[in-house]
């Protein structure tokens, strides 16, 4: 049963990931990426990492991909119509990196792979892994955790500084009232 579910989710993940890259319409690509995140969440659930699975949907599928879609729709990208030397160079790099990745993957697969969790002992499986993740996060990995939050804070402050700077410049240039209104 578990193996069948794993194969199902894994196949869905592979197919949707391929569609992300292969589809021409950026909105459809983004939607396939959402499906890929959901099937990845399914695999996490099979590995009894239900917290990780749910957070995967909340953060990636629910927040980040919505912003992606927002940007794609806002820019109104329709089809990729680039031609000429630029796209040829880009395609060349893409093929090279893709081949490299494929070789690495093949080398990894040759070493054999296991279905399901590598170690059978699940930490704190009886009262769910939310509690055990919290305990580990706030004791053993407290320092990396705090560093990550400071990193996010820095990014947030940076965004505010950039946005404010642009608004001030617009005010000085005597831009339209709408821009001032939007920046307030």
């Amino acid at each position: 049963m578990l193996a069948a579910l794993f194969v199902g989710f894994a196949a869905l993940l592979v197919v949707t990931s391929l569609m992300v890259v292969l589809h021409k319409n950026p909105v459809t690509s983004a939607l396939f990426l959402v499906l890929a995140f959901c099937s990845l969440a399914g695999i996490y659930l099979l590995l009894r990492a239900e917290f990780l699975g749910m957070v995967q949907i909340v953060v990636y599928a629910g927040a980040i991909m919505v912003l992606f879609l927002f940007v794609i729709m806002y820019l109104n990208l329709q089809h990729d119509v680039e031609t000429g030397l630029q796209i040829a160079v880009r395609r060349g790099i893409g093929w090279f990196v893709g081949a490299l990745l494929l070789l690495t993957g093949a080398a990894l697969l040759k070493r054999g792979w296991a279905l399901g969790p590598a170690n059978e002992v699940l930490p704190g499986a009886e009262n769910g892994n939310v509690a055990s993740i919290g305990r580990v996060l706030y004791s053993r990995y407290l320092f990396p955790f705090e560093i990550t939050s400071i990193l996010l804070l820095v990014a947030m402050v940076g965004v505010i500084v950039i946005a404010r700077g642009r608004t001030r410049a617009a005010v000085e240039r005597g831009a339209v009232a709408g821009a001032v209104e939007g920046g307030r």
Partner: protein
Amino acid sequence: MAALWDIPAVQTATWAFVKAMIILNGMLGVVSYLIYAERKICGHIQARTGPNRVGPLGLLQPIADVLKLLFKEEFVPANANKVIFHIAPILAVFPAIVTFAVIPMGPPPTYVVTDINVGLLLFLAMSSLGVYAITLGGWASNNKYALLGGLRSSAQMISYELAMGLSTIPVLLKSSTLSLVGIVEAQAGWYSIPGTPLALPNWGIFHWYLVLPFVIFLITAFAETNRAPFDLPEAEGELVAGFHTEYSSMKWALFFLGEYMNMIVISSIAVTLFFGGWHGPGLMFGTNGWLSEGPGWMGLIWYLVKLSALMFFFIWVRWTFPRLRYDQLMGFGWKVLLPASIVNVLIAALWLFARGGM
């Protein structure tokens, strides 16, 4: 056949399927009469009588409406993205139904489909997926009003989701579990008011540090379900009908269904987190004994009573308050609700820590 039935997995799956069917059909029935209730209540608030022509008291009105919608023409605009245009209404209904799998409607295990230990996270995940329906519906319609409605909705729902998630954390701190069944069980019994001989039910709302989270949760619930005063995505004065401008017939009805189902789900979560879920004084025995001693269906009735009260509140608010302006909405979400909910988490954590409850 009997041998197959003896396998526990088969039993679990069968019962889950039966419960899912009951919930699905029950929801469809409840939603149609919820719309009737909304029209009636709105009518009386505006000193009218509301629908009263089809059947006694207009009670057959929902059936007539559904029949009308079923026979209307399906219309797809030219140059619309056909596949996404068809998927969007389905996405509007699906998250609400999935969330119902973890809501305890009565004493477990009979009155809950499944009890997972990340139930609340499932609700948050599904409510964050709900934004796709509106965004994609608005985009795929190839209509500028629909697109604006869709973009507004995605910005609004992302902004209010944060405050909603943070407002549930004090409840989690109190009950120290993410399972909705566990959260309800943590609210059983009585809670004596210090210094007085009086006692209140041990529901979340009767603890002082959970009052503000409840208010924040309720406000964000209005925003998440796109109900007035936060119905900016479909503000008819500016956007014709917002994201569903181009939708007709049953596809439009699915959006409508999704909105009301989301209302039911979010009210159920509010009942679960703050009003003790299915707990209530046992009406059957006339003693002060709790329902856990009484029959299970009494729990279902208590849950439905609380749910109906909250739904009435939703409708009441919609027909009472004017719509906010868009910049007011964003400012309120980011500058008032988010800091308030963060402060709240701190207060609740400090209080529970000082009391030694953690």
